[in-house]
């Protein structure tokens, strides 16, 4: 159990400054999920915490000790590589146990741990195979296995479940959570799966362009995104955005996009809004209620069946608005009326794209 504290970190890869001036404080025993678009520097950040990249600037503290220049093996970390990096000449069992054997763990203890991991990852029948004889998902599970057999203080997972089927993924997600509780270890976890992120994370960090945009609980990030990027990045389909301006009228504040004037007086503005301020309104699809008495109207352009629910795409004066509906009774075409749940709105400054 160790905290991870990163200050002003800068990482240079080749000619690219991949990470710059990054701060991150992970509490001991916390489960933090890293989210961000492809190429934003998530893997680089994990590698830096693990000590595989030289820091160009800043410091990394693990368990209260400055580890900026420590050797990976002294950092008490375990890492699941995005590219697996399995030892190609060793079979699955050896791949998982190698680190333990080197560390001098007793034989039966190794056997026990490997057996447990293999069981959890459903790798039992494959223990004797070499990586070259495994499917993509099987390799990925070996990579996870190699990390979790170790008793690290900090576990770093780089998209560990991306190539697994939904069922297995759900199972493993639960197992990892369990493991987290049992070991009490700190975990930093990169994923693109928002369900995974939401269910696993104590806190979530959303990255973009080598910097952290928001670091907060999943709920807070989902409901109160700090800026437009975070707002649009999370959720599938993403948050609906309407461009307009804020108008004051009778001591009340209205959002006006030309077709719709929404009373947003109840919105918890951080600073009193300026009259006529350019502003973007965001609302999640599940907060768009399709009901006959809705104040807005749109024509249905597409209906996506998602199994458990459907997504209705409505054309609202040229802007596509997505709405999630539950029952099939929803209109399959033509026009529909809808409303936006007023307590679930987010407003962003048009210029800075920061939350108002």
């Amino acid at each position, binding site marked *: 159990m160790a905290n991870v504290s990163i200050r002003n970190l800068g990482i240079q890869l080749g000619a690219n400054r991949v990470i710059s001036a990054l701060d991150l404080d992970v509490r001991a025993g916390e489960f933090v999920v890293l989210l961000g678009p492809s190429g934003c520097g998530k893997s680089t950040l994990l590698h830096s915490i693990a000590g595989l990249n030289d820091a160009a600037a800043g410091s990394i503290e693990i368990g*209260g000790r400055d580890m900026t*220049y420590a050797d990976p093996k*002294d950092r008490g970390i375990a890492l699941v590589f995005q590219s697996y990096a399995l030892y190609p000449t060793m079979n699955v069992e050896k791949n998982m146990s190698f680190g333990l054997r080197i560390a001098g763990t007793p034989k039966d203890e190794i056997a026990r741990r490997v057996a447990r991991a293999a069981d959890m990852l459903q790798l039992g029948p494959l223990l004797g195979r070499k*990586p070259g004889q495994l499917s993509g998902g099987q390799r990925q599970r070996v990579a996870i296995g190699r990390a979790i057999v170790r008793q690290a203080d900090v576990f770093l997972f780089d998209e560990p479940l991306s190539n697994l089927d939904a069922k297995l993924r759900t199972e493993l997600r639960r197992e990892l959570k369990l493991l987290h509780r049992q070991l009490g270890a700190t975990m930093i976890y990169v994923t693109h799966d928002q369900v995974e992120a939401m269910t696993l994370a104590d806190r979530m960090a959303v990255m973009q362009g080598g910097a952290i945009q928001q670091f907060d609980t999943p709920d807070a990030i989902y409901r109160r995104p700090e800026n437009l990027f975070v707002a649009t990045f999370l959720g599938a389909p993403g948050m609906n955005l309407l461009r307009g301006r804020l108008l004051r009228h009778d001591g009340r504040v209205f959002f006006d996009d030309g077709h719709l004037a929404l009373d947003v007086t109840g919105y918890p503005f951080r600073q009193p809004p300026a009259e006529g301020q350019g502003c973007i309104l965001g609302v999640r699809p599940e907060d768009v209620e399709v009901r006959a008495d809705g104040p807005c109207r749109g024509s249905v352009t597409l209906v996506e069946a998602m199994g458990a629910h459907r997504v209705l795409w409505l054309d609202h004066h040229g802007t596509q608005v997505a709405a999630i509906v539950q029952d099939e009774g929803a209109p399959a075409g033509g026009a529909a009326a809808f409303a936006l749940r007023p307590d679930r709105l987010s407003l962003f400054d048009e210029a800075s794209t920061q939350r108002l």
Partner: protein
Amino acid sequence: MKRDAMADIALPPVRRKRGGMTPARLGVYVFLVTAALFFLVPLYVMLVTSVKPMAEIRLGNLFALPLAPTLAPWDSAWRTACTGLECEGIRGGFWNSVWITLPSMVLSIAIGAVNGYALSFWRPRGASLLFALLMMGAFVPAQVMLYPLVRALAAVELYSSLPGIVLVHVIFGMPTMTLLFRNYYAALPQELFKAARIDGGGFWRIFFELMLPMSTPVIVVAAIMQVTNIWNDFLLGLVFAGSDHLPMTVQLNNIINTTTGERLYNVNMAATILTSLVPLALYFLSGRWFVRGIAAGAVKG
């Protein structure tokens, strides 16, 4: 693990200066330098011998620095030593050697690469049998094959010609070159080859555009081997090249290998070092081709 209890105590940073001299790094250098010194002892002896007059050499002080250093042996080796009627040192055959080595090397590497590539990726029927035979051929002393080869080349009128000697070098280089490339390609991810086939690549296209660029390290090794072998070859050159194309090693051999004539060790050493300069230059320049991570990022898992 009572980490919490210790949390208040400020722990010292775990520091390891990067780029600095750790004991491990020091060990690396100590090993390498020691090994290098050991490797250099014979060269040292050769060098000092080559600048001693014969009278000093006869004294037998092998490691002693020359008392009266002289460059005459070098001069003699390069341009004045007599071997038979010719008195032009070893330089006479220099260009012959170049003209023999260049095409022989390029061809044998090319053929070895194509063979290795075909064997590793395309695996035509019967190829492994052919390869086994080829490897067997590598173990037959070249000298035993001289007579039939001479007959064969004479039959196709290539005996005593530049193409003839090149052909002979290519033939003798084929087993090792093929082996070298075959095993190198065996270590590359097969998926790449599959991807290229999906992309519609034919035999040559895949070879030239994909495999060859990934082969630089092994090409360097192949070049090191072939340049050295061909450049230093003497017997094949003597037998097959014909009098107009005798390589420099024939002169070198004439200088250093006399049986009953007097031996000028200083000239011998100078001539040997001079002759090896071309391969040595290649060794030195080959560094930039020993690239790291040639297949980095190619496949996941």
